[in-house]
């Protein structure tokens, strides 16, 4: 059935006209204008069909391609509920404590980004060391564990707890020993946790050991005075300091604190009062402290014992055997003269010794007693609690393990598989322990050998406390939620011991409220705000040494003579790397050693003449074989001031499992340490053989003498007393200077700086502080070797050599000197001088570096095209060029090339792209913040409102920053000092940074110069 109706579309169809019929045969009834389009006119129409299709196709393709590129996703997640105390852009500060230093943690939007010394900590405010400054980077270390590990696999805490609880139950049932191995614990709460754990598992013993041990001092004091403590040393009360190889300004016990004390008798304020302490240093390797000594005499390690005996005999008139230094007449002569001075300065003198040998330290106690140090410069009644390691107990623990007596071991804050002297004995013993738990935050040398890694938290995520000195307590409080699935070690122990309070915060608080707050008379909230409190110190008792030295002296002589063969090796803690626990911290790896200026490696240091006699040149790679057979291959560094016949190697290097920055940097020197007479000894004898290879160490400074140039100006104390301007080159009549340039108007502030060369010890914590504050990239060993380190502030270290009465500082004369043992060292912090007539400013083609109206030399990164002309024309060579995109280039992935670690960046300071010049900005962001807060408070800026990062970190207060327009500001006062000079002032750069002359208190010992 034909049901579909036919509709016609037009009359043509209805009528079936012939045209229609004809056309309807074609596919397209109406003619298409193909000819028109294809002829010339058609093709030149604006958009022919084909072109349109092409354009359409291209457009689609292009859009598709463009859409395929992952657009950068900026993860900025707003607060759902804004915390009351967090204002974006405004930092919050929390008090805490790090390694005995009272600190402020600066957090921005909930993340800690900077460590600053706690200004409210009163007498405990003594700056921060490089480790504290760098510690903020440890929090953002990608090498950390993200969850606990059970049998090498990441797991949950529940599984870990179940496993450990079961194993502990077995251990308890077996009645075998349980050991907690830790470095010294001086946190009262941690100690209480350990005590609780011990109560739950009575076979537990807490063994404390320190990789760099102070057991010798503790045992000696126990022996001499019945007090097993490290005393409180008062370097500020000592007018005469004699140190036998104690690097007390650097690594010895509490360097930052001692630096503050030491400098208080030597800085500009003290000098203005006509007072300056004297400091003798007798040591084998050139230490940071040695570089600051007024008189430094190189003595072999084997001569230190005899030297002390000589000193004792001279002071007391005693006649102990062994007190002679036949091969070192200079030292012997110096000791004899010094002894007289020590007796004269009775009660105001201090002798310290870096040895860990009990007998040696007893001898030192006897000397100190003879010169009346106890009760004045040494305080045994308010002792230092930072170190309580016991080498013998740890040695016994190794034996117990090897005998299979141990059922469970917990490693807290310790890494014996790396730093124990005999790794094999440790690992063999450990394999016999059924339950091995490490509280490490990463898979390190020890924790990889353990069944459980109960990932610990960074101190910035933790609760805790510290009792550095008798009666002084400080708090550790978290500044960020734990980043990973980690748990504080103390909490783990509480859970495993099934304590009634398992939350560690509550535990700490309870402990404080019960035991500490009543003593201090403070409340918990006050503690959280102020950070550190001390009860009134006990009166320092005067102790007298009255034991016989009959057994002591021969022991000293014996251990000394054991070293007096082959080449004597001293292994020491380096200022940057310390005992090696921070090896994965790129800031510390790139912090130049204060003395050798070497980064990213350890080395064997030999005296120049001694190396020459061995036929060894600098950077030769040698095999160093210890008398126990341990061999390492290390490059040689020629170190002026190193005692002849001795060598030094830094500890803390050669980590194999610490993370990407620190793995296999340098060589491990711990196996050179030996155990004798109940303590660890950090000296041994070695033989050296050349391998024929060379390895250029990455040094930030490769020329070491100042060539007699007046960039360094110094005077002796005697000259200074006669004329405070001695050595500055100032004349009575100022000569007229002429100027091509206009003077800058500085109507408001004039930011200037004063640096006291007599206060600066060269420790380098300012460098790390600056790195962290200003997002300065770490560039790595190869780039440092190419002389491209980025540090905005550096410490120039120059050697000069004494010959007769004159000082030799020119390379070509030094090359001809016979005796290079008498070295003087000066440290000069060098940073952008913010010259009023800055050579860099005139040469920049694009005005990227300009002068501000408050005396600063600005650098506009965005404008910089990178001609490097400014750096060439900078006479101070303080400008740093971004040769690569260091912070975001996989070839320089030391630490920062991941989103997590980038959280450490200071949001107030931009990261610089490649091809841009940068340099010290005088912490312009801090100046701005200071100005703003004064403005908000509607008051003028006060002196001290604004502090530079370097200034803040400096324990010695060597750096003073402030407004030069304010005549009453600290810096104005400092710059009015007679000692002030400006580096390269003769080229009329008009620097904004004044330096104060280096003063050496060497006069009263003219005859020492043998």
């Amino acid at each position, binding site marked *: 059935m034909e049901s579909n109706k036919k509709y016609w579309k037009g009359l043509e169809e209805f009528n079936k006209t012939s045209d229609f019929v004809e056309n309807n045969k074609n596919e397209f009834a109406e003619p298409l204008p193909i000819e028109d389009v294809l002829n010339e006119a058609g093709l030149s129409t604006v958009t022919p069909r084909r072109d349109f299709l092409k354009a359409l196709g291209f457009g689609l393709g292009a859009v598709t391609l463009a859409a395929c590129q992952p657009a950068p996703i900026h993860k900025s997640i707003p607060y759902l509920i804004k915390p009351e105390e967090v204002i974006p852009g405004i930092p919050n500060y929390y008090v805490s404590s790090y390694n005995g230093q009272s600190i402020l943690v600066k957090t921005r939007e909930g993340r800690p980004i900077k460590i600053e010394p706690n200004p409210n900590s009163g007498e405990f405010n003594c700056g921060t060391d490089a480790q504290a400054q760098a510690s903020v980077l440890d929090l953002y270390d990608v090498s950390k564990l993200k969850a606990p590990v059970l049998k090498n696999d990441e797991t949950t805490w529940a599984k870990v707890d179940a496993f450990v609880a079961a194993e502990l139950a077995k251990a308890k049932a077996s009645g075998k020993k349980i050991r907690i191995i830790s470095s010294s614990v001086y946190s009262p709460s941690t100690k209480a946790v350990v005590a609780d754990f011990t109560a739950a598992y009575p076979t537990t013993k807490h063994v404390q050991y320190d990789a760099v041990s102070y057991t010798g001092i503790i045992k000696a004091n126990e022996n001499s005075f019945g007090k097993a403590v490290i005393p409180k040393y008062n370097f500020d009360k000592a007018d005469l300091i004699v140190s036998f190889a104690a690097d007390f300004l650097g690594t010895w016990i509490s360097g930052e604190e001692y630096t503050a004390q030491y400098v208080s008798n030597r800085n500009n304020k003290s000098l203005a009062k006509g007072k300056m302490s004297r400091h003798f240093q007798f040591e084998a390797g050139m230490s940071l402290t040695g570089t600051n000594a007024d008189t430094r005499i190189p003595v072999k390690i084997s001569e230190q014992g005899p030297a002390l005996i000589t000193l004792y005999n001279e002071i007391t008139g005693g006649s102990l055997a062994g007190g002679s230094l036949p091969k070192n007449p200079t030292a012997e002569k110096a000791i004899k003269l010094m002894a007289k001075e020590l007796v004269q300065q009775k009660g105001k003198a201090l002798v310290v010794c870096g040895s860990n040998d009990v007998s040696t330290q007893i001898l030192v106690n006897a000397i100190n007693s003879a010169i009346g140090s106890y009760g004045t410069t040494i305080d045994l009644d308010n002792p230092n609690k930072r170190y309580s390691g016991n080498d013998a107990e740890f040695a016994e623990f190794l034996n117990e393990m090897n005998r299979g007596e141990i059922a469970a071991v917990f490693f807290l804050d310790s890494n014996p598989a790396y730093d124990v002297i005999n790794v094999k004995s440790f690992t063999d013993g450990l394999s016999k322990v059924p339950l091995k738990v490490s509280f490490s935050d990463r898979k390190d040398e020890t924790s990889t050998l353990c069944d459980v890694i109960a990932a610990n938290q960074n101190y910035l995520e933790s609760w805790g406390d510290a009792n550095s000195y008798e009666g002084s307590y400080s708090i550790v409080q978290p500044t960020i939620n734990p980043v990973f699935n980690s748990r504080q070690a103390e909490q783990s122990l509480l859970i495993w011991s099934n304590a009634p309070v398992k939350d560690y915060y509550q535990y700490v608080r309870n402990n404080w409220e019960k035991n500490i707050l009543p003593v201090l008379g403070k409340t918990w909230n006050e503690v959280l705000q102020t950070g550190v409190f001390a009860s009134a110190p006990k009166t320092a008792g005067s102790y007298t040494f009255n034991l016989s030295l009959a057994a002591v002296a021969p022991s000293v002589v014996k251990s000394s003579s054991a070293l007096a063969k082959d080449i004597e090796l001293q292994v020491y803690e380096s200022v940057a790397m310390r005992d090696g626990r921070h090896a994965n911290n790129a800031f510390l790896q790139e912090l130049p050693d204060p003395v050798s200026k070497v980064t990213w490696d350890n080395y064997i240091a030999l005296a120049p003449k001694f190396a020459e006699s061995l036929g060894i040149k600098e950077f030769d790679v040698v095999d160093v074989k210890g008398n126990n057979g341990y061999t390492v291959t290390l490059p040689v560094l020629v170190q002026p001031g190193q005692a002849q016949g001795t060598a030094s190697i830094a500890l803390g290097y050669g980590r194999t499992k610490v993370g990407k920055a620190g793995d296999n940097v340098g060589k491990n020197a711990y196996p050179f340490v030996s155990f004798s007479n109940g303590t660890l000894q950090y000296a041994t004898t070695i033989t050296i053989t050349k391998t024929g290879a060379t390895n250029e160490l990455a040094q930030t*400074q*490769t*020329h*070491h*003498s*100042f*060539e*007699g*140039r007046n*960039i360094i100006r110094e005077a002796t104390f005697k000259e200074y007393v006669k004329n405070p301007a001695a050595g500055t080159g100032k004349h009575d009549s100022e000569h007229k200077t002429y100027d091509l340039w206009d003077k800058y108007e500085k109507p408001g502030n004039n930011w200037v700086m004063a640096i006291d060369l007599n206060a600066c010890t060269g420790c380098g914590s300012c460098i790390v502080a600056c790195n962290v504050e200003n997002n300065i990239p770490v560039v790595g060993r190869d*780039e440092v070797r*190419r*002389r*491209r*380190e980025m540090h905005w502030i*550096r410490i*120039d*270290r*120059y050697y000069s050599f004494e010959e007769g009465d004159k000082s030799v500082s020119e390379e070509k004369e030094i090359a001809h000197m016979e005796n290079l043992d008498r070295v003087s060292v000066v440290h*000069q912090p*060098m940073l952008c001088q913010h010259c009023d007539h800055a*050579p860099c400013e*005139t*040469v*920049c*083609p*694009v*005005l990227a570096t300009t002068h501000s109206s408050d005396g600063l030399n600005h650098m506009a990164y965005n*404008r*910089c*095209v*990178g*001609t*490097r*002309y400014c*750096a*060439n*024309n900078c*006479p*101070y*060579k303080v*400008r*740093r*060029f*971004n*040769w*690569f*995109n260091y912070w975001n280039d996989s070839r320089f992935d030391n630490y920062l090339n991941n989103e997590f670690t980038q959280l450490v960046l200071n949001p107030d300071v931009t990261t610089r*792209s*490649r*091809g*841009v*010049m940068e340099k010290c900005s005088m912490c312009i962001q801090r100046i701005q913040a200071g100005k703003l807060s004064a403005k908000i408070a509607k008051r003028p800026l006060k002196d001290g409102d604004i502090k530079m990062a370097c200034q803040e970190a400096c324990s010695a207060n060597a750096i003073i920053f402030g407004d030069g327009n304010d005549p009453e500001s600290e810096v104005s006062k400092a710059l009015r000092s007679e000692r002030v000079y400006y*580096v*390269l002032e003769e*080229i009329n*750069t008009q620097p904004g940074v004044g330096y104060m002359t280096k003063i050496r208190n060497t006069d009263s010992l003219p005859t020492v110069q043998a």
Partner: protein
Amino acid sequence: MSGHNESILREPLITGNDITYAKITDDILMPVENKPNRAWWIGFIVSLMGATLWLVAVSYTFWNGIGAWGLNKTVGWAWDITGFVWWVGIGHAGTLISAVLLLFRQNWRNSINRSAEAMTIFAVICAATYVVSHMGRPWLAYWVLPLPNQFGSLWVNFNSPLVWDMFAISTYFSVSLLFWYTGLLPDIATIRDRATGLRRRIYSIFSFGWSGNVKTWQRFETVSLILAGISTPLVLSVHTIVSMDFATSVIPGWHTTIFPPYFVAGAIFSGFAMVLTLLLVARKVLGLENYITMFHIESMNKIIILTGSIVGVAYITEFFIAWYSGSEYEAYAFINRSTGPYWWAYWMMMTCNVISPQLLWFKKIRLSIPATWILSIVVNIGMWFERFVIIVTSLHRDYLPSSWAMFYPTWVDVSVFVGSIGVFFTLFLLFLRVLPSIAIAEVKLLLKTSSEQAKLAQIKEGHLDKVHVKEYVESLEKFDSVKQEEYAKI
């Protein structure tokens, strides 16, 4: 004979027999109108490889950053600015020849000015690549131009010698290019007239419709003179300004008032050496011995010995002043130059620039092509070392010994420099293929045909003194190797 006012006979500037205008055109256009010979191909392929190396090295630098070079915190310029100053210096001979010698009516320049000026332009191109590639952020290189911008009223720093440099180099390049191209117009027209097809169309466009009528020639002459007048100060100013990059700084060894004249002399010195290096080969390969004659070679050698001696005196003066000034930094900089870790560079410079050019006092050596060619290369090696010594040895040990450092080049440094030579020769060889390497129109001016014919007529008519005629005929044969009768045939 008294009373005759004829100028002293000179050696002819174009040698050879049967020289006619047509022959000149044929000779000079031979390489342009024919397929290249094997020597050209070998040269071109080697140069192109060099240019490719340059491209690779510069791209590598752009991709990775200036860190690819061996520079460091102390030595911020080394091979880059050494190369830059070297190339700019080389360019100077071209301008001196084309402009200064034109103003002084030194017609002998007509044979060499075209190539020398082409060399100038290519050398300045090479120098300009360094200006851009040495920047940390080369994509922003235009910021050194005082362009209106959206950054507010942000101008360049008119105090900065780098800005002066930018003006000097860009002016120099534009004026040189203009001068060179103006001179090329009649020659391009000549090629156009002889060519057919596409070549004719192309050369037709580039000849700017040159018609060759009197008015055109007159304007041509005027423009040439004006441009010569503009270029002449540039010969002095460009390298003076380049020297100010150093002279206005505070770095010992840079901060020296002697630099401007010393740099200009050095530039001309190296420029002439480069002209010799190029033309000694080109005249042989392209068969242009009749146009670039021993006279040219000797003249240029004389200029080299003069400027080389000026440079030598400057070196000695610097040393004297370093001592006489009593400035310890300055004194150290110079002692360090000659005896420090880069002593070899200093003595290389002294040998190549001061000692070896003294050999040119001997006429035999001045007239020996191999000796001249070797010396010309030695001079350019010496001049490279001069810039290296000034830049690197001054920077590497300046004021604070703590920052003293050594500079070690990387493969990229070396490749950029070697590659820039490749770029230069590639451009130069292409130039030889497409444009006349000798200014045809200007060389034709040197042909004395008409005056010689007039002379012939005078002799025939017996107006001249016989002694004089004899002397004239003899000298024609002696110097021009032309028999007088030959003029009759023309």
